[in-house]
């Protein structure tokens, strides 16, 4: 169940991350959520499986701490489900052709397989040291039998996605001491959609 009580995004926090707001249909109503709020509310994924979500969250957390709770999986999943021209993942700048889902899913499958082969367990059960070891190997393309796009490229893409959710928001920017200075306040339409739900 996805109840209103699970939606933790206050108006203030919503404003600070609105550039990443995502629309979910709940009981026939449009609900605007940030990636973090979508994760907190356990909104259903559209593209990624549970295993893919846990793999993505774990490896991204090891690359960019804070990205799990910032909603990296919700952000990526939402964008993968968008129409090709509407997906806002940085991969569109890096020569990726839409649809992006196969690129992500094949990469996550390769990462999962690497965890099984080296540590006999999925990413979500790796120790911090084991995760770091795999990440280091991905960065340097040192994982044998890697069956997806080059691991170092996937590392780059996932790191960029994770930086989007952690540092690419008003709160993320201000959290490292950089004033955000937005020109445009978030759309009233988004607020009314959220307030309507509440």
């Amino acid at each position, binding site marked *: 169940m996805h109840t209103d009580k699970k939606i933790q995004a206050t108006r203030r926090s919503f404003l600070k991350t609105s*550039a990443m707001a995502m629309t979910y249909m709940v009981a026939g109503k449009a609900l605007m959520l940030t990636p973090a709020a979508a994760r907190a509310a356990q909104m259903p994924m559209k593209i990624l499986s549970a295993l893919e979500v846990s793999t993505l969250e774990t490896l991204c957390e090891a*690359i960019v*701490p804070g990205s799990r709770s910032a909603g990296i999986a919700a952000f990526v999943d939402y964008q993968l489900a968008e129409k090709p021209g509407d997906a806002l993942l*940085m991969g569109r*700048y890096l*020569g990726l052709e839409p649809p992006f889902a196969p690129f992500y899913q094949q990469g996550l499958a390769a990462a999962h397989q690497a965890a099984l082969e080296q540590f006999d367990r999925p990413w979500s059960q790796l120790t911090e040291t084991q995760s770091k070891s795999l990440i280091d190997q991905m960065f340097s393309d040192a994982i044998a039998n890697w069956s997806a796009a080059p691991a170092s490229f996937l590392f780059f893409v996932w790191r960029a996605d994770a*930086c989007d959710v952690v*540092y*690419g928001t008003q709160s993320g920017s201000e959290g490292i001491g950089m004033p955000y200075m937005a*020109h445009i306040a978030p759309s009233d339409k988004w607020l009314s959609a959220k307030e309507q739900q509440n």
Partner: protein
Amino acid sequence: MESISLEDKFDVLIVGAGAAGSLIAAKAVQAGKTVLILEAGPERKLSDLESSQISARKLKWGGAPVEESGNHKIGNSFNSGYGTGGSALHHYAVWLRLHENDFNLASEHGVGLDWPINYKDLMPYYDRIQAEAGISGDAEAEKWRPEGAPYPMPALPVFAQGQVIKKGFNKLGMAVSPLPLAINSQPYKGRSSCLYDGWCDAGCPIGALANPLVTYLPQAFAGGASIRHDSTVSRVLHDASGRKATGVEYFDAEGAVHQVLAEQVVLSAFAVQNARILLNSKSTKHPAGMANSSDKVGRYLMTHPAQLVLGLFDQQTDCHLGATGGQLLCQDDYANKDKGDAFGSYQWLIANATKPNDLLGIATGRADIYGAALDPFMRKAAKHFGQMNFVGEDTPLADNRITLSERKDQFGLPLAATHHSINERTRALVTEGVKQGVEVFKAAGATETWTGPTVAMHLMGGTVMGVDAKESVCDQYGRCHDMDNLYIAGPGVFPSSGAVNPTFTVHALALRTVEKMLATG
């Protein structure tokens, strides 16, 4: 069989609502012409230009995939726009003039192509455009600047990042000037002045930056021009003689096919898509594609090879302030193109406003920092980061080209396939320049310096202009040699790239084009 909807006839039909198309539309309606603009992307409004590097990506190319190959791929998705305003909606407004030595590469150096015009031909158009759209700068401080009217507005302020890096140039005996920007340093023609918050890449919603939504499109619409979004042009139509374009065929968002007729047709859909449309416009009269009797459509595709030099400084830099395009300019080596092993001019765009994320953001440049080390780095960099951008000249090569792929888009149209490589002399130019940039940063006191990859910045060529109809696609006004009333506008007509950002020149050339059209049509 698909039904084709035949629609009204216009005096001028323009494909693409970017910098060139919007200017031509405005001037044409002001001369009493009926004008229709077909834009492949969606409608964009100023209120859509949200301050976010993530949202900014929606402004970039979102149409049919463009295949890329070569040792220096063109980066179409980053360099092209999609929707009202085209790439000029997200451009950084670095409005520089080509230099006098940019127009005669072949005759002066035996390299590439000559332009069919010289700087003197273009200068009055630069002067008129800068008065209309507004540029802030300091012409006297730009000691390298070719002749021309002074800027209509004073230069934008230089913030801490620019002041810090400037010291490095000065220590090495190099000059810098304020960067001329089509961004208002003071209110100009009803548009407000800049707030210096560094969101140019996401599009400027306050009208301080001269993008088409605040410059020429309002004039076009006020004069009665129409625009149809989500309209993908597939081919140019022609009469029985093959010499006269009669209109275009396009697909709407639902895939319905339309034909619209016009007395004059302008392709201003940017370098890659213009060539794609021409190559796809095959007929018995034009078996190799329209305007391609020379086999030059698609050839001489160019970009500016660019590379970032980045670093950390002891001083606080406030790198989030200013304009994305930069604060300062250095063109000390611009006049010397022939450097032996290296060839071409280059310039430095210095102290670019920088955000934490995205392709040009702080985090992306240091992919080697991750895990527990990342956040401390980001916190330090947020206060002490600096960067500047090397922009080099590309050498026009016939084998760098746009062709049609075997693959098709959603409408069954062949995708554009692009191939672009830089030669050894251009590679040497980049190496030499970046080495200099690192020395500048060290001289400026950088505590740590690193460089980015060599990337493609701007797209040019593919439908080059020239005197000889056997060696070029269009004449000096953009009129296709093979056609009486088909014009090309935009950076695709550049026979060589120079090393300056192209948008100012795109405007100046488009003004020449439309005035020629109006004089002959």
